């Protein structure tokens, strides 16, 4: 049983124009076995929330706390957070030229698990995970994210998640850039992961369509750098019908 507790989180980004506050007091709890959806309009700061949890150096936390099972996440480096059990499926996964998927996955698994997986069982494990996401076995020999289609990038993210088995997974706009078929495959992968691992999931999305495949326990509306409304799965349907307009005022607050 794991709990990620975010309390009064404020974060800003420093650009040439100066420091800009993006997160303005986020309170959110993600627990094992539960899926929290965070929905919001463009520019509301919901992707920043994902990056701040993962520890991207671009953002500075100015106030508040993030705690995973009693441990101060803000005190950890990016890789320490991953080893503590956090995982971020990125909206824009980064190309790493010359590094094969298979080498990358094994290096990550070794880092997370603290020892190198035995080669034979590892290959079987990887093959099974790839088959579940309808990925061709030649995929493992390609360079990380290099020349991947949008769908391949997202499948690759979910593949990593299922192999690294985090306690808490953050999915940042995993549905963006996916056609209906790819969305179904990726969603099935996420559901399988939830079922197998019992992990907590923070699902960040702009659109409601992914929520038709991955049912959340709680839906949070994110606007102006914080959560402005919380409800059950029905809230997503309201947002689908009405859009984010009624939260527009809060975005500029």
């Amino acid at each position, binding site marked *: 049983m794991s709990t990620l507790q975010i309390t009064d989180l404020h974060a800003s980004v420093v650009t040439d124009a100066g420091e800009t506050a993006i997160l303005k007091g986020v309170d959110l709890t993600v627990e094992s076995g539960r899926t929290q959806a965070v929905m919001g309009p463009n520019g509301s700061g919901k992707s920043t929330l994902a990056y701040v949890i993962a*520890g991207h*150096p671009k953002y500075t936390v100015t106030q508040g706390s993030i705690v995973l099972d009693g441990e101060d996440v803000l005190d950890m480096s990016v*890789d320490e957070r991953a080893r503590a059990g956090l995982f971020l499926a990125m909206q824009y996964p980064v*190309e790493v*030229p010359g590094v094969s998927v298979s*080498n990358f996955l094994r*290096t990550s698994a070794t*880092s997370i698990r603290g*020892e*190198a997986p035995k080669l034979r069982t590892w290959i079987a494990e990887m093959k099974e995970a790839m088959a579940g996401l309808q990925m061709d076995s030649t995929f493992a020999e390609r360079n990380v994210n290099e020349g991947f289609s949008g769908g391949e990038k997202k499948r690759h993210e979910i593949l990593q998640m299922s192999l690294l088995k985090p306690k808490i997974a953050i999915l940042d706009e995993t549905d963006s850039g996916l056609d209906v078929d790819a969305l179904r495959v990726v969603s099935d992968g996420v559901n399988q992961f939830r079922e197998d691992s019992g992990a907590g999931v923070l699902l960040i999305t702009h659109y409601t369509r992914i929520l038709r495949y991955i049912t959340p326990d709680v839906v949070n509306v994110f606007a102006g750098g914080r959560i402005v409304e919380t409800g059950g799965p029905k809230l997503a349907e309201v947002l689908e019908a009405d859009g984010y307009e009624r939260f527009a005022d809060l975005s500029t607050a």
Partner: protein
Amino acid sequence: MSTVQAPPSDLAPRILSNDPGDHGTPHGREEEWRFTPVAKLSDFFESGQRGLVTAVESEFVTMTPAERNSSTVEKAAHWVASDLPSALVRTHASSVVSVAIPAERKVDEIVVVDLAGSEGLNYGRIEICAGAFSKATIVLRLDMTTDVSGIVVTDVADQADLTVLALYDGPRTSRHVWQWGTTVGRDASFLGLAIALGGSIIRLRQNVRYAGPGGSAELLGAFLASDEQFQEFRIFVDHSEPHCVSNVVFKGALSGAHAHTVWIGDVVVRREAVGIETYELNRNLLLNDGPRADSVPNLELETGDVVSAGHASATGRFDDEQLFYLQSRGISEELARQLVVRGFFVEVLDKVKDADLRRDVIRRIEERIGMDAIEQQLTGVDA
């Protein structure tokens, strides 16, 4: 020795002569020497008492006193010294290291040539000849504990397939100035790979010409410069024959405040060189702030009737987004950096066909960037 007037091209060497007196002493203002720390190489421009680079003789390797050397390789390769250091070596080296692969001979094992000098500045005069229809891979292991001014004259005869890998690996103290001159015969293939890791100064000039149509030359380089190291690579490919190919790929990783690398890629495509393909690429990865990488590709086309001709050059900072991505998967910052640097060199190292040789080169690069961690981590548990 009479002075041969070089053909008119802005990129071709101006003076071709084996007589040191025909070459002026470089001062650093000349185009050819403007990046080189000539003040630190003054002894390379003077004659005097010098040591000799020697090699152990073997089936394919012989040492011949210079006065008994018939210069057949030089003649076949149409090689003439194009600067003062190479003319001095040509004139004063007392012995020649010859690597000769007989015609129609396919040599399966790698021909390793250990080139050793004595204390101080040494002259190294190397001749490589790959006979017609032969196939071989030669590894030149340079002794980086002493200073060397050297020439490597290579003749790749018709339809021969020759790979020459030069390993500049060792202490970061010695100075190495080398000139390679390679002639590629009709339908022949030459792959020249320079791995530059050691030395305080490495200056490598590589000139390639073709002796007939259908020849292919690949010039590759992987270099790592850190601390006070200076490394310069000057390429000149002279396309004067039709339907030939040249492919130049040099990749460098730089770290430390004072590392400096230079890559100059000159390619001339003459009027008669129709249907050729040429491409040259230099990429430099700056691992931190401070190092300087100069990169100048030059392409001179005298005919538009080519299959393809292009060049690319880019020098970039280490990508922090790659670091974040790898770290977010639990990989430590140190390991992540090493993965990215190793990945950076893959394009060059994949060209080394022999698996053992490729592993050896990768191991040397990894040792230089402290890569041992990855291998131990990945292989430690496997039975």
